[in-house]
């Protein structure tokens, strides 16, 4: 009995250590965001700002075009998510329901595409997009994001489709519904929660994405939020910490909110794809 209590205490101690490791950096970010310059320069920083202020936020908006960057990010992420789901859902359906060579090749591509370093993809893409005059434009970025989100979207959606019983569709077919009809009025409604979760996940990945945006967008008025955030860090790595923290905190909020909504489904979707393999 005593060892059990001992084990319990050990478990709680370990859990507490994990909680601290996970939470403290984020709390520090929040704390820094609300500190006035004098406390930021102090040699003995404190966890809780003594004179909390919103100045950092104001200054962040003054220094960098955050609103416009957020607008760009939002536009790119929403477009990418919607397009990715629109084209991935039918394909995922075919991959889940038909064991054709095409479906197998697509599954292979989903796996292989994870292994390739972005450089090997971005250089040719850069050249292709340049020829199409899509460099330094949001449509170009959205195109890249759609393709980039596809593997994971397909992975998740295939899992969701498999969870919809094929018998339902067969019943609809017996009742004389065509294939498209079946898909739209029987399968789609059942898939809807999975589709929404996939779209939201694609939204977050695009909202957070940095590398492609860095390479593809050159003019400041087109850049997305992550790229603009790096502008707070000067050439010598010197940063104005307060506004930097404030802007970084704001940029995280949308992802956090969306992620909190879909976390369970993401977990399920990831495994639904994985278990099947």
């Amino acid at each position, binding site marked *: 009995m005593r060892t059990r209590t001992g084990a319990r205490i050990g478990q709680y101690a370990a*859990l507490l250590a994990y909680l601290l490791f*996970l939470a403290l950096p984020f709390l520090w970010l929040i704390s820094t965001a609300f500190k006035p310059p004098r406390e930021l320069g102090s040699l003995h920083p404190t966890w809780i700002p003594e004179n909390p202020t919103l100045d950092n936020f104001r200054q962040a908006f003054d220094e960098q075009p955050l609103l416009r960057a957020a607008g760009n990010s939002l536009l790119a992420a929403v477009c990418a998510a919607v397009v990715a789901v629109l084209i991935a859902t039918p394909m995922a359906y075919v991959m889940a329901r038909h064991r054709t060579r095409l479906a197998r090749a697509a599954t292979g591509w989903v796996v292989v595409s994870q292994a390739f370093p972005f*450089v090997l993809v971005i250089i*040719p893409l850069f050249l292709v997009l340049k020829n199409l005059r899509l460099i330094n434009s949001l449509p170009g970025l959205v195109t890249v994001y759609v393709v980039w989100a596809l593997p994971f979207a397909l992975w998740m959606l295939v899992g969701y489709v498999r969870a919809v019983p094929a018998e339902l569709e*067969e019943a609809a077919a017996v009742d004389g519904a065509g294939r498209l009809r079946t898909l739209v009025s029987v399968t789609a409604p059942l898939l809807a929660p999975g589709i929404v979760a996939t779209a939201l996940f694609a939204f977050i990945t695009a909202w957070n994405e940095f590398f492609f945006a*860095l390479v593809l967008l050159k003019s400041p008025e087109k850049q997305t939020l*992550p790229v603009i955030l790096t502008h707070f860090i000067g050439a010598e790595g010197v940063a104005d910490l307060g506004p930097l923290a404030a802007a970084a905190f704001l940029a995280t909020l949308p992802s956090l909110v969306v992620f*909190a909504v879909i976390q369970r489904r993401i977990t399920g979707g990831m495994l639904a794809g994985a278990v099947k393999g």
Partner: protein
Amino acid sequence: MTVVTEVRRPANGAPSQGRRRRGGDHGAWFLVLPALIPILVLSVGPLLYGVLLAFTDAQSGRTEPTRWIGGLNFRDLAQDTLFWESFRIGLVWAVGVTVPQFLLALGLALLLNQKLRLRWLARALAIVPWAMPEVVVGIMWRLVYSPDAGILNESLRDLGLGDGRDWLSGLGTALPAVIVVGVWAGMPQTTVALLAGLQNTPRELHEAAALDGAGAWRRFRTVTWPALRPVALAITALNFIWNFNSFALVYVLTNGGPGGRTRLPMLFAYEEAFRYGQFGYAAAMGCVMVAVISVLLALFLVGRLKGGDEA
């Protein structure tokens, strides 16, 4: 969780599928094309194009036509000590992040699988690193590591462990400091995957083993681990690839500094391609990265799978 509903289609679904395949293949094509075309044009195509580029002298902003130069890029690369140093750093980073990531995530997943209080809090917190933009993760840890205003040095001072240091600019500390951030950022995703795997392990077996007097470690080895293995292998392999190819975190934290001590291969190739415009050479680097990673992964997976047969 949706995992539970994921059941293999029974065999009686097979004939209807066969019928449908014959009857409506053009229908399937119609469904597949909207995704297939972008995949071919913007993913498969560029990949092949990228491999071809590695055998050319392609540069940005040059007027003369690009020429084939055979394996010259690769021969240059073989002698490029800077690249191999970067490659070595990349491997240290990838292993240094992936292994602790897995061990810590496994520990957390095992804890979360128990009926502990505060479990919800840990689950909620685990979301934060996962959902955060990588750039923000980098910025946040810069604040933590900041020599004067950072909380790390302040905590060390409070604990009487010296004055701390400038972690990200120290030649010896930069890489370890960056690796800690990598572990932090990737741990939640691994935890969630492992936790889902744990919840698929048969509980009755656990109870039976406990009744037979097996200790916690034995139960883990004989009951939990065999069930968890496939998930663990998959997520570790993926983590290794993702970590080796990671870019944004280190770009924000150190930008490869100090003195190239944290210049991961991706940063190296990025500079080569988009700062110096050496597209062909950078593509060759990409090819080498893919080749080495594939070989390492193949060795890892084959080794692990063999080990599984014996255990």
